[in-house]
Structures are given as C-alpha cells and as structure tokens.
C-alpha cells in the first residue's frame, strides 16, 4: 500500500472520474427535476387514464434494481438495433454514458415525482382557495402558491434523492463509463493497491458533503421567513442540541 504514491501518480484520472460522476448525477437530477413536477401534478390532479400507467411506471422503477434497468436499456436496446438504426437513435444507445444517464433520469423521475406529490398534497387547502379568491388563474396559483410551498416541504427529501443518485451513478462503471468508480476500478486492476479505494471513498464523501452544504444554503434561501432572521448564535445552539 502506497497511499500517497497512488494519489501522486493517478490524480488526473481520479479527477476526470469525479468530473464524469458530477456530470452524470447532475444532468440526471436536473432532467428528472424538470419532468417530476409535471408528473407530480398528474399524480395529484390527473384522471384515472393518466394515473394508472403513471403508478405502474413509478412502482416498476422503485421495485427493480437500477442495475437491471441500466442493463435493460444498454444491452436491451441491441435487440432492436435495426429499428433504432432506421429511426436514427442507434448512435444514442451505442454510448454507455447516454444509456446510464437515461436509466438514472427515468429512475430519479419516478422517485422525485412521488416526493413532489407529497409536497403538493402538503400545501394547505386554504392557501389555494385564497389564491382563487383574489382571482389567480390556475397557472398563476401553481407558480405563486402551490409550487413554492410544495418545494419548501419536499426540499430535504429531494436532497436525499439526489445524494442517492450521486451514489447510484457508480453503477455506470459496470457498463464501462469511466466515472470515479470506473477510474478507481481501472487503477486497482493496474496496481492492485488497495489505497485507491480509500481515495475513492474520500472523494465520494467530499462530493456528498459539498452537496449537503449547497442544498442547505439553498433551503435557507428558499425559506427566508424560517431561517433568515434567526440570530446566528441561537441557530448554532439549536443545531448542537439536535446533533
């Protein structure tokens, strides 16, 4: 074991792996984050014709391993190769990065939809009625009342989901994406030096810790009426008590 020698020799590889991991998890979270509020509205307000397939989709995505979903997309697309070539999508499915990203987006959309559904249902009915009473249109009440409040409720759970996505992105290494996990495995196969795993663990912990910090800052920005005006000394004290 040469803990620092490994880092000195392979840090560019590890760093590029971190870049790919951030790209995978970040793009996955953002694309799913655009789709989820729309689907969550369907889950709350939609008729049965829209609800039933959506519930099946969410149950399937939550009830099967992400690895199996990724294999289904990456290897499974090969079974439809002639068809995919005809419609010009084969180039997309040939890239392991795209397939892993598609799997993460589909999986995370299901989880984020359920989280946001809970948030939307947590908005007090009186607030929505008040919006109607002052003459807001449906869209405006969504924009000004429902979603701001729903996101405030759902924020911590959404953060947890994105952390799960960062961790799950390591699965992409199984379909030969050179993310942090993929680079780590490649370095171990070259050197058989265990310390590369320690560095990978440290880097993953740094990634999630940094994300938790950013997410908490955004939470304070999102709910200034709860977090903003509290004296910092009191804030620090209450934090210590709960920890």
């Amino acid at each position, binding site marked *: 074991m040469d803990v620092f020698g490994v880092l000195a020799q392979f840090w560019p590889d590890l760093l590029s792996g971190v870049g790919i991991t951030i790209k995978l998890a970040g793009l996955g979270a953002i694309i799913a984050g655009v789709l989820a509020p729309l689907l969550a509205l369907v889950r709350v307000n939609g008729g049965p014709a829209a609800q039933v397939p959506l519930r099946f989709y969410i*149950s*399937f995505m*939550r*009830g*099967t*391993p*992400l*690895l*199996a*979903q990724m*294999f*289904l997309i990456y*290897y*499974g*697309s*090969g*079974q*439809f190769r002639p068809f995919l070539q005809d419609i010009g999508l084969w180039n997309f499915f040939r890239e392991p990065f795209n397939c892993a990203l598609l799997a993460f987006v589909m999986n995370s959309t299901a989880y984020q939809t359920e989280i946001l559904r809970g948030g939307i249902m947590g908005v007090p009915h009186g607030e929505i009625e008040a919006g109607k009473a002052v003459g807001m249109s449906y869209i405006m009440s969504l924009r000004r009342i429902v979603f701001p409040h729903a996101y405030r409720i759902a924020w911590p759970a959404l953060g947890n989901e994105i*952390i799960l996505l960062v*961790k*799950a*992105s*390591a*699965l992409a*290494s*199984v379909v030969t994406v050179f993310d942090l*996990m993929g680079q*780590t*495995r490649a370095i*171990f196969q070259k050197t*058989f030096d*265990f310390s590369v*795993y320690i560095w*990978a*663990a440290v880097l*993953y*912990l740094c990634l*999630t*810790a940094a994300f938790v910090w950013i997410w908490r800052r955004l939470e304070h920005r999102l709910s200034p009426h709860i977090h903003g005006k509290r004296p910092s000394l009191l804030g620090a004290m209450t934090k210590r008590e709960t920890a």
Partner: protein
Amino acid sequence: MLEVFSFGEAGWGDQLLQGLLVTIQLALTALPVGLVLGFAAAGASLSPYRWLRAIGTGYTTIMRGLPELLTLFVVYNGLGLLLNSIVSSWNPDARVELSSFVAGVIALGLVFGAFAGEVLRGAFQSLNKGQMEAGKAVGMRPTQVFFRIMLPQVWRFALPGLGNLWINLLKDTALVSVIALDDLMRMTQVAVRSTKQPFTFFLAACLIYWALCVISEIVLARLEKRANRGVRRA
C-alpha cells in the same frame, strides 16, 4: 417467444430459478447480519460514552455516504488482500479465496446496518421513558424491561423504516453479480449471452425483482398491522 423461459434443456427457466434462489439466500443471510450491526450502531450512538458514540455515528455517516458498489469492492478486494496477508504470515504457501457470497453478505450487511442503525436510533429515542421506569418500579430486571417493554415498541416504530431497507437490500443484491456471484442478475446475463435476446431476458429479470418487491410490500403491510394491534389511532 416464451419457450426461452421453459425448464429443462431447451429453455432458461431453471437457470433463472437457480439464480433467484441465490438472490433470496443472499438477502436472507445479509438481513440478520445487518440487523445485528444496526442494533449495535444504534446502541453505540446512544451510549453515554463519547468514544462509543463517535464510533457509532462515524460508521453510520460514512457507510451511508458511500456508493454500495464501492463498499462491495472494498470488502471483496480489501478483505481478500487482508486475509491473504494474514494467512501468508503463518504459512507462506497458503492462499485463501474470499467467496463472492461471503463478500456480498458482509458488504450488504454493512450497508443495511448503517441505515438500520439510524432507523433504530430514532425508534429507541421515541420510547416513553416513564414506561421503562414503571417496569423497574414493578421489579423487572433490565433484560425483562428490554424484551417486554422496549423491544415490542421499537419493533413497531422501526418497522416501516426497516421495511424500506429490506426492499433496498433486495434490489442491492443485484450488485453482487458484478463480483461473479451466480445470482438472478448474473444468470440472466449468461442467458443473454447465448440467446442474444437481451431485452427479453433483462425485462424478465426486472419483472421477477418487481414481484419480489410487491410480495415484500404485502407481507410488510401485514406485519405492520400486526405490530400496531391494540394501538389506538388518533
């Protein structure tokens, strides 16, 4: 199209069934390991000793922040190297191989234990202290207080959380196919290699995992109902 799933020489039904049995075995073996680790972690993070608390929270925090795949490789490669270096210091010619099943049980147990530790800590903290004192007052021994008053209620509080963890454990078993354990996922890959029907077989594997999860959810709902019998609903 369904003949590829038939049993016997022609189809892959029996191979998939074998893989499914390995998957279930793996999950059922990792569960008690994880529960023991979870109770230990909860006990440690609630202990009056500072160093024990540090170990408990350190374990749950770090383990929950690492990708499960990384934990699996750390256990599989790291423990393998460690065992070999210990064995070769006794006998330079001997070699040991850590089986992928054992590595899978340890890694999945470690992950389950870290999350279960947090769930159980919350459950222990929501116990009503007066009840424990009442038990002491009527002359119960500490073990009696634990088994008759604390454990039944911890079970009730922790069951929803532990149920979610069980479903995650079931899904995480698929990772062990990466270190060449012949579970459902790997048997599916073997079948794909010879039939060249990847979509059909991976879809079948997904449906089997899905069925396992749905069955688990039904059983868990029953268990929860039973654990909550006699509780007045608000």
